[in-house]
C-alpha cells in the first residue's frame, strides 16, 4: 500500500481527542515561549567556534590538513588565537578577499596557514559583507537546491504510510552501513539513521572523508552522508518509495553537521541542545547558541529535527517524570519557532519507557502518546521504543515492542523508531531489523484504523493520567519560567541530571560578539520568509 505523502506529514486531528483543557495547553505554550525568550538574548549576543566554522563551510571552505584536522578548524583556531573571533570569521574572510584572495577557500587557507599576525581589518562591515555577497548568495542557493532535489524525488516517489519506520544502522563501517541500509529498506524501512561513533559529539571538529572504523556507530562525515544517500537514491528507485536518511547534529559541532546535512540532503537530524547538555555534559551556553544557528540552517533546508526528550526517561523514572518530557517539548518547540522552524519540521521525541512490570503501563503509555499527539498536532512526532527496560530475553522484548507498535499506530505517531528485540544486547544485527520491520508491518496493518475506534472513557485511567501529566507539565513550566532555563537545568529539572551553566564541555568556544560582528549567512537565514 502506498499513501500520498501528507503535506510534510500533517496529522489528521485525533478523531476522538482526550478531553483535556485547551487553555492549559495554550498557557504551557506561552510559558515555554517566555522561557525561550529568556535565553535568546544570550544567544543573540554570542557566537561559537562551531558557528564560525559553519560560516566558513557555507562559504565553501573545505579540506583538512595532513593530520586530518579540517581547514575550518585550523582557520577558526587562528582567528581565536588572534582574538578576532568576536568579529565573526566572515569579517576575516572578507578582509582577505578584499586584499586579494580569489575566494573564501583561498582566504581561509591564508588565515589558517599564513605566518605572522593576522592583519587588522580596515574595511567597514558593509564593505566586508558586500565582498562576500555573491558567496553568501551561493551558500543559500546550495541549501535551497539540495532541498529542491530532495523534494522532487520525494514528490515523485512518495513515502510509505505513517508511522514511518525508522531503523538504525551502526556497524562502524560506512560501506557496511550502506549495505545494511539497503537491506533494511528492502525489508520495509522508510528511514535509515546512521548512528554516530561513541563520543563523536564531544569532539570539536567534524572528521573528514569516508570512514570504516567506529565504536557503537559510524563517524558522521560529509563523505559518509554522501555514501549513504547514494545508496538510498539507488535503492529508492528500485523500491518505488522515497527513502529518508537521518544523522545526528547534537554535540559540539551541531551547526556544522546541520550544514553538511543540509547540503547532502539529509531528511532528518537529531538536533537538540538539551540532549547534549544532559547526556553529553556539553556546556549549556555553548550548545544553545549552536542550536539556534543550526536550526536556522535546518529550517531553510526543510529538514525535520528530532529532539531527545525520550532520553529523559532512561535516567529519570518514566511514570514520575512523564511531565518533564511534555514541558521540555514545549520549550523545544519555542526554541524551534524562534529559529524559524515550522511545526511540520519539529519531530519532538517521546518514548515508551515505563517499567514493564507496572500494572496498566500500557494505559499510561497510551495516555502519554495521545497527549503528545494532540498537543503537537502538526508536528512529525517521533515515537521511541522501550530501551532501558528491555531484557536479554529477546522474545519478551519483541513482545514489548509489539505493544509499542500498537500504541504508535493507535495514536497516529509520525515517525517510529522501531524497537529492537536485542536492544539490551548489541547494536542491531541485520536480522534484528528484519524482525522488527516484519513485526511492525503486521501491527500497523492489523490495527490500521484502530485510532478511529478509540473513544476515551472520560472516567477512565487513560484520561485521568493524561490530565495529571499535563497539569504537572504546566506547573513545571511555571517554575522554569520563574527561575529561568539556566537555573532549571542546573537544578536537575530535566532527566534528573544537573548541569550548571558554566560547567561541561565547550564553554571556551563561546565568544561574545563584538559590535561589528559579521555573519551574512545568519543574516540571510534570518531573512528566510
Amino acid at each position, binding site marked *: 500500500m502506498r499513501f500520498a505523502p501528507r503535506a510534510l506529514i500533517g496529522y489528521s486531528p485525533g478523531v476522538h481527542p482526550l478531553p483535556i483543557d485547551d487553555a492549559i495547553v495554550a498557557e504551557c505554550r506561552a510559558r515555554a515561549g517566555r522561557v525561550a525568550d529568556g535565553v535568546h538574548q544570550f544567544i543573540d549576543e554570542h557566537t561559537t567556534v562551531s558557528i564560525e566554522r559553519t560560516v566558513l563551510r557555507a562559504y565553501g571552505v573545505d579540506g583538512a590538513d595532513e593530520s586530518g584536522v579540517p581547514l575550518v578548524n585550523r582557520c577558526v583556531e587562528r582567528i581565536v588565537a588572534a582574538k578576532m573571533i568576536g568579529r565573526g570569521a566572515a569579517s576575516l574572510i572578507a578582509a582577505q578577499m578584499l586584499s586579494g584572495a580569489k575566494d573564501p577557500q583561498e582566504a581561509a587557507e591564508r588565515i589558517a596557514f599564513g605566518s605572522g599576525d593576522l592583519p587588522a581589518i580596515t574595511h567597514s562591515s558593509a564593505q566586508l559583507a558586500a565582498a562576500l555577497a555573491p558567496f553568501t548568495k551561493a551558500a543559500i542557493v546550495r541549501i535551497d537546491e539540495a532541498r529542491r532535489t530532495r523534494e522532487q524525488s520525494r514528490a515523485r516517489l512518495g513515502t510509505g504510510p505513517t508511522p514511518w519506520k525508522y531503523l538504525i544502522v551502526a556497524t562502524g563501517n560506512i560501506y557496511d552501513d550502506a549495505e545494511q541500509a539497503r537491506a533494511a529498506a528492502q525489508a520495509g524501512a522508510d528511514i535509515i539513521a546512521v548512528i554516530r561513533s561513541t563520543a563523536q559529539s564531544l569532539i570539536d571538529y567534524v572528521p573528514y572523508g569516508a570512514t570504516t572504523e567506529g565504536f557503537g556507530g559510524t563517524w558522521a562525515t560529509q563523505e559518509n552522508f554522501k555514501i549513504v544517500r547514494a545508496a538510498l537514491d539507488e535503492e529508492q528507485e528500485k523500491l518505488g518509495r522515497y527513502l529518508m536518511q537521518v544523522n545526528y547534529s547534537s554535540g559540539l559541532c551541531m551547526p556544522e553537521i546541520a550544514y553538511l546535512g543540509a547540503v547532502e540532503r539529509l531528511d532528518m537530524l537529531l538536533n537538540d541542545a538539551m540532549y547534549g547538555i544532559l547526556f553529553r555534559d556539553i556546556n549549556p551556553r555553548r550548545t544553545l547558541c549552536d542550536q539556534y544557528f543550526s536550526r536556522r540552517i535546518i529550517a531553510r533546508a526543510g529538514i525535520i529535527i528530532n529532539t531527545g526528550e525520550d532520553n529523559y526517561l532512561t535516567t529519570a523514572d518514566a511514570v514520575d517524570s512523564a511531565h518533564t518530557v511534555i514541558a521540555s517539548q514545549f520549550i523545544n518547540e519555542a526554541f524551534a519557532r524562534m529559529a524559524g522552524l515550522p511545526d511540520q519540521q519539529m519531530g519532538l521525541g517521546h518514548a515508551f519507557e515505563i517499567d514493564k512490570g507496572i500494572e496498566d503501563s500500557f494505559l499510561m503509555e497510551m495516555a502519554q502518546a495521545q497527549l503528545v499527539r494532540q498537543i503537537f498536532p502538526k508536528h512529525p512526532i517521533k515515537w521511541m521504543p522501550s530501551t532501558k527496560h528491555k531484557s536479554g*530475553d529477546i522474545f519478551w522484548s519483541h513482545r514489548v515492542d509489539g505493544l509499542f507498535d500498537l500504541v504508535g499506530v493507535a495514536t497516529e505517531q509520525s515517525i517510529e523508531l522501531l524497537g529492537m528485540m536485542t536492544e539490551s544486547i548489541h*547494536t542491531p*544485527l*541485520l536480522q534484528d531489523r528484519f524482525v522488527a520491520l516484519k513485526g511492525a508491518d503486521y501491527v500497523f496493518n492489523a490495527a490500521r484504523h484502530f485510532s478511529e475506534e478509540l473513544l476515551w472513557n472520560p472516567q477512565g485511567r487513560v484520561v485521568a493520567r493524561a490530565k495529571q501529566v499535563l497539569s504537572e507539565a504546566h506547573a513545571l513550566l511555571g517554575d522554569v519560567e520563574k527561575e529561568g532555563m539556566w537555573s532549571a537545568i542546573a537544578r536537575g529539572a530535566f532527566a534528573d541530571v544537573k548541569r550548571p551553566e558554566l560547567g561541561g564541555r565547550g564553554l571556551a568556544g563561546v565568544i561574545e560578539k563584538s559590535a561589528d560582528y559579521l555573519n551574512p549567512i545568519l543574516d540571510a537565514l534570518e531573512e528566510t520568509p
Partner: protein
Amino acid sequence: MKVRAYGDRRDDGRIQLSFTLPVAASAKAKEAARQFCEKLGLKNVLVATMEKAGRDFSFFVAYGNSDVALEYDSISVPEVTVPTWDFKEINKIIKEKIGRKVVVVGACTGSDAHTVGIDAIINMKGFAGDKGLEAYPWIDAHNLGAQVDNITLLARAQELHADAVLVSQVMTQRDLHLENSSQLIEIARKNNQRGLLFLLGGPRIDHKLGLELGYDAGFGPGTKPSEVASYIVDVLVKRKRKGEGKK
C-alpha cells in the same frame, strides 16, 4: 563462493540460539550454557539471558560467532521444474495434447486428519486465489479426505484409472510422515502401480524429501494448485511424447 553467517558485518558469523537446560538457574547454570555454546563451536559467546523456566529448568538466549563457512556454489538441491502455466493454459494443453481428462486422486493418509492442505490443492476453492483442481474442466479430481489408509487410496486410484496420486502429510512427530508415506510407495511397487505419478505434499515436505521417499515430486508450504496441475500435465505430455501411456 564461501558463505558465512552475517550478523553485524559480512562474515562475522554471529548467530542466535535459545535452549533449555534441565538445571536450576544459577551462575553455574549460566556458565554451563556458555560452555554448551562453545561445544557447538561458537566463539565470543554471550549468554544474553538466563530465565527461570521452572524450578529445575533454565532457559537461555545466547549469541556467538560461528566459523562455519559453506562452499555455496557446490550446494545443489533438486528443484521441481514446473512450467508456469495458468488455469486456461493448463486446460488447453490437456485438451490439445492429452485429449482426455486427467484423473487425480488425493488424500491425507494414515492417522493424519489435516485436510486443509490437500483441500487447498484439490477443492474448488483452491488456495490464495488460485482455483483448486476440481475447478478445472479438464481435470477429474477426487479428494478422499482425512485419515485414509494407503491401501484404500491405491485401490481407489486403480478404480478411477488415475494418472496421479496426491498424498498429504502434515503430522511429523516421531517421523510418522516418513514411515507412512514411504510405505505407500512400497505397496504401489508391489501392486505394480508405480507407473502412476506420485506427489507428496505438506508443510515439512520439499522436493528433495519427496524424491528420497520414492515420490516423483514433493511440494511444500505455499504450493498453489496451478503449480501442481502444471507439473502433472507437463510430465504426462512428456511421457506421451515418449510413448509411455497409462499402464
